């Protein structure tokens, strides 16, 4: 066993923290909550130049060839900085599936653009049922000649407003088993028949209503095998859950640190509030949530990187952090008093994001069910 990070990983950590502290101040974070696009193209380009966007992709397509664990390190720092923008959408929901299941042509067409920061991607999976199960996939794709024609509405699609390619999960055959007959399509964001509407959320992220009205896509845009897409979706949700957990981890770490500092600085009754035992015990509890999350996150990410099956470990960390991050931010509010309840204070950014992140890619109940299955129940 060796729980240390490589020098390269330590460097990634540090350079990511420094870069984001500099380039992603909270003023920018707040601005992007109101912005139509929700990200800064120049900053996106800079991140691409640093190799961040191409981090996990093969070098032959312009990527860095790094592991998921490395990606998790980067995502933790992005979570710490509340970095806005379509990073998880592009890299995890869009890029990784193409890297894994795409044809050579698809990979050559799209991956280099992702790595250079020239293409934004996302996944259109959930529908008005708002669930992550196969029954809920109702959007239909029908064969017409050498094309498919897709119609229907997707909801809660992240960053579809700016996406160049959208991987659309659609039903291509009816079957008694809802997991059969689902196909993934790589759809050009400029295809006629697509409309997107931004949905306002408490987290200020860019979720969209995404409507396909007889959108025509060539057969060559099928990702993986037709009618067998659900297994792929399951895997994508796992990656996304882990990536989201990494962001949450970084946020929780930052909230703990800023709250410890606040407790040392804030004086009431002629002493720092951090000297009151109840505040100390709150912080002790928060630290247990944060520190136990960190090693569990890294274990799951390491397993994924090593190709060891880790459905349980991913659900353990997403299930755990979904509640732990919310607990930590709520407790931090209690310790901050009224100042943290204002829009001027950074804490509110994390509190809002914690809830949204909890609900993305499976909340605690969703992941507990997976853990139950993994335990043989």
């Amino acid at each position, binding site marked *: 066993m060796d729980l240390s990070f490589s020098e390269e990983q330590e460097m990634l950590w540090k350079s990511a923290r420094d870069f984001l502290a500099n380039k992603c101040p909270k003023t920018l974070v707040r601005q992007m909550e109101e912005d139509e696009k929700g990200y800064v193209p120049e900053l996106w380009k800079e991140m691409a130049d640093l190799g961040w966007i191409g981090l996990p992709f093969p070098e032959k397509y312009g990527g860095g060839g790094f592991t998921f664990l490395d990606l998790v390190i980067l995502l933790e720092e992005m979570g710490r900085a509340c970095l806005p923008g379509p990073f998880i959408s592009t890299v995890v929901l869009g890029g990784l599936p193409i890297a894994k299941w795409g044809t050579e042509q698809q990979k050559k067409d799209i991956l280099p653009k992702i790595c250079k920061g020239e293409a934004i991607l996302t996944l259109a999976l959930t529908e008005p049922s708002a669930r992550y199960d196969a029954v809920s996939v109702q959007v239909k794709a029908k064969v017409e000649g050498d094309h498919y024609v897709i119609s229907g509405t997707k909801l809660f699609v992240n960053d579809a407003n700016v996406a160049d390619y959208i991987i659309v999960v659609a039903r291509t055959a009816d079957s008694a088993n809802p997991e059969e007959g689902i196909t993934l399509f790589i759809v050009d964001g400029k295809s006629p028949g697509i409309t997107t509407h931004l949905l306002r959320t408490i987290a200020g992220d860019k979720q969209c209503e995404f409507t396909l009205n007889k959108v025509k896509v060539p057969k060559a845009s099928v990702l993986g095998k037709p009618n067998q897409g659900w297994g792929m979706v399951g895997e994508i949700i796992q990656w996304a859950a882990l990536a989201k957990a990494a962001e949450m981890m970084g946020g929780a770490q930052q909230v703990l640190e800023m709250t*410890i500092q606040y407790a040392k600085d804030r004086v009431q009754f002629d002493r720092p509030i951090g000297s009151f035992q109840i505040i100390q015990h709150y912080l002790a509890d928060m630290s247990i949530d944060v520190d136990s999350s960190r090693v569990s996150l890294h274990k799951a990410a390491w397993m994924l990187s090593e190709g060891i099956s880790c459905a349980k470990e991913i659900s353990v960390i997403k299930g755990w952090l979904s509640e732990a991050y919310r607990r930590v931010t709520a407790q931090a509010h209690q310790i901050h008093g009224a100042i943290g309840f204002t829009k001027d204070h950074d804490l509110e950014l994390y509190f809002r994001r914690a809830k949204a992140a909890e609900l993305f890619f499976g909340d605690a109940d969703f992941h507990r069910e997976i853990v139950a299955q993994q335990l043989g129940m």
Partner: protein
Amino acid sequence: MDFRYTDDEEAFRKEVQQFINESMPPGWLGVDPGPEEETREDVGPLARQMWRKLGQKSWIGLTLPKAYGGQEAPLWKEMILLQELAYRGAPGMDTAIAQVDLILTFGTEEQKRRFVVPITRGEVKWAIGMSEPNAGSDTFAVQLRAVEEEDYFVLNGQKIWSSGAHNANYEMVYARTDPENKHMGLSVFMVDLKSPGITLRQIPQMTGIPAFCEVFFDNVRVPKENLLGEKNGGWQVLLHAFGAERTYGLFAIYNAKRYLDHLIQYCNETHVDGQLLSKDPLVRNRLAQMAIEIEVGCNLGHELNWQAIQGQPTVKTSNQIKVHGAAIAQRVANLGMQILGLYGPLHERSKWVRLGGRFSHEYLSTIGSSLAGGTTENSKNHIAGRAGLGLPKK
């Protein structure tokens, strides 16, 4: 980063597992690690056998120098051994081992040979005499008096809550040698519990097991060569002793893991209204939540072990695990009682009992887990303090 066990470590784990399989009676459901359940008449003899066997294999104090009966093995081996023993609920994990650490740190060469070797051979047991009626969390309030005379100290006073002292040969006794100085006036003695002037009274715990002992000292003469460390230097031993209890929370977690696994198996085999309990969404959800809490605790345990191997400070992490582990132990016990329903509270000897009555025991016994070895509140003070989050005192 690599979470895998090496081949050597994996091979050792298999060896330990096989040893436990061969040493436990068929169908063994496991007992809580530590001196409490070893007090039971049906467990005591098995526990004694286990100490001997572990001693013969030089598995007690695996990491110690060979001169003191150890194997100079890497720390990882000991961690695997303790995890397996706790997970399988095999008796024989000895609080004496924590005392070895103290003796090796503060003892003279003569003391090391005299006291450590019999412990590592599995021949003697030790009790811990810290607490007194008026010194619980506030260990520095110890009043038991030790007065120097000629070549011995005379001890007068009492200890309480000394777990398993009635089964022990020696007790590590924290005594006051300077009544004027609360913190710098303590000394630590290794006391033969057969010494004249010692009276023991067992106190039944809530579980019904009489594992607590009151130990009364009436002019007990302790030879000077049994003073551990310096006279009035007991504070150093005491602080070290808190650190030596590093693994306590992890025992609780691995113990809870066994209970959870029994519960999962039970739910996979038990039908209610024609449906397997494990198919009930509420039951699945609760069991999975327990599994998550336990897994997260085990992961933090990996971190703790890693810190120890690296020689980093472990105060924060070990106390975090102590708090988390104690809470988990109580929650898994409560969950078991709820799932068993009216069968839950049945005594283990009832003919209708389920899962050997382990959950009714556990429900009662784990109330002690957030107290023993320092309370949860005390642990949180440590986490928040200088060696942890660095919060100010005043």
